[in-house]
């Protein structure tokens, strides 16, 4: 039985042309996308890559000789599909700026210090129920030149593989209460307020570790196959 990934779910995503985010103007298609039925090519997806995940790849604070500077945090959550089912063995990759708001990427020339003890990349595989956990440093805000005085709210980039090639998701996790939210065209490219809220992690006191690290919870919801069998012929 082939199951259907409902297209309505895609309404949560930002419009590709979002002029307040200037780079979208020349990189968004100008012609309408062509709808097509999902074939096996779209409904299957890579189920490997996990063999490259090393045991401590989810701890970004122990990748170098010393400890990185900044506020140590735990980021954890549930990768699930839109029907509420956990996604086991999903590959979750993340990358982020350091505590000063600087990436190690050569193109990042923000005049804030690099941290020799922080790469800012990690990966993990979700467990049998779809849960994941990272230990990292709270990233700083950084300027990005999109408009006068443009600063990105602190965020962590996430890349997630679900059950199929069309459930692939790249997103950003934000921190609760960030004063930059009203001014960020990337965050606000998501027009629905409830959908925007799903990109904001929640402070998790219960899993905050005394004398060690604050904890944030970030659940990631992927497209799911609802229980309705797809009609073979439309």
């Amino acid at each position: 039985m082939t199951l259907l990934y409902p297209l309505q779910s895609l309404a949560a995503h930002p419009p590709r042309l979002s002029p307040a985010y200037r780079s979208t103007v020349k990189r968004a298609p100008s012609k309408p996308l062509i709808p097509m039925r999902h074939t096996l090519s779209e409904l299957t997806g890579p189920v490997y890559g996990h063999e490259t995940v090393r045991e401590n790849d989810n701890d970004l604070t122990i990748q170098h000789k010393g400890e990185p500077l900044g506020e140590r945090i735990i980021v954890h959550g549930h990768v699930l599909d839109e029907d509420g089912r956990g996604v086991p063995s999903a590959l979750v990759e993340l990358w982020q700026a350091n505590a000063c708001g600087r990436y190690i990427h050569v193109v990042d020339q923000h005049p804030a210090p690099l941290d020799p003890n922080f790469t800012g990349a990690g990966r993990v595989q979700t467990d049998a129920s779809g849960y994941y956990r990272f230990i990292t440093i709270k990233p700083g805000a950084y300027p990005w030149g999109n408009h006068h005085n443009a600063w990105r709210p602190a965020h962590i980039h996430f890349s997630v593989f679900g059950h199929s090639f069309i459930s692939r998701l790249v997103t950003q996790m934000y921190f609760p209460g960030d004063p930059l939210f009203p001014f960020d065209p990337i965050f606000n490219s998501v027009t629905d307020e409830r959908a925007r809220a799903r990109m904001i992690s929640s402070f998790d006191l219960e899993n905050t570790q005394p004398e060690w690290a604050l904890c944030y919870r970030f659940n990631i919801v992927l497209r799911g196959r609802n229980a309705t069998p797809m009609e073979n012929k439309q």
Partner: protein
Amino acid sequence: MSEQRPDGITPSQTVGPYFKYGLTPNGEYAWNDAFSNNLVTPDVSGARIRVEGVVYDGDGVPVPDCMLEIWQADAQGRFSDPQDARALPNNSFKGFGRIGTDAKGGYAFDTIKPGQVADPDDKPQAPHIVLAVFARGMLLHLYTRIYFDDEEANATDPVLALVPADRRATLIAQRKAGATNPSYVLDVHLQGDNETVFFEV
């Protein structure tokens, strides 16, 4: 631990300009690659091919900070995913590749020519590779397909048939003359007169 049914999916956000050291370090950064642009392992059966091209923006300027991901069947048309439950012999081909474009917007994948995969009506599709395009300035990635100009099955492919005839060429990689292993060229135009056909899936 039971949770409520979510009220929707997590919205997509751009990969931004700085994904390379995390997702495609390619030896330039001290982080191990989960995936590469070479899908071929010595024991894989099938015709070795290269697919290459350049990604352009709406001004025709090459896009140096683009990430491409491909997904494809093996030479007999089988996907390396347990969801592909058809009784076809398995082999070691994984079928997924990832690359960041270079300073000139260029990309290349070394892979094998995929076999044919049926559509939901059991009609054979022409050999194709599914391509996802991510970049700074793209809030949500785009899906397209790579077909091959030397496949007669293109003429009856049910997905190509959905595409206006004058835009089909944007999906069909052209075989380069002379190379030892067949090499196919397909540029990606994010916008403009030659805009690549992207699919809503």
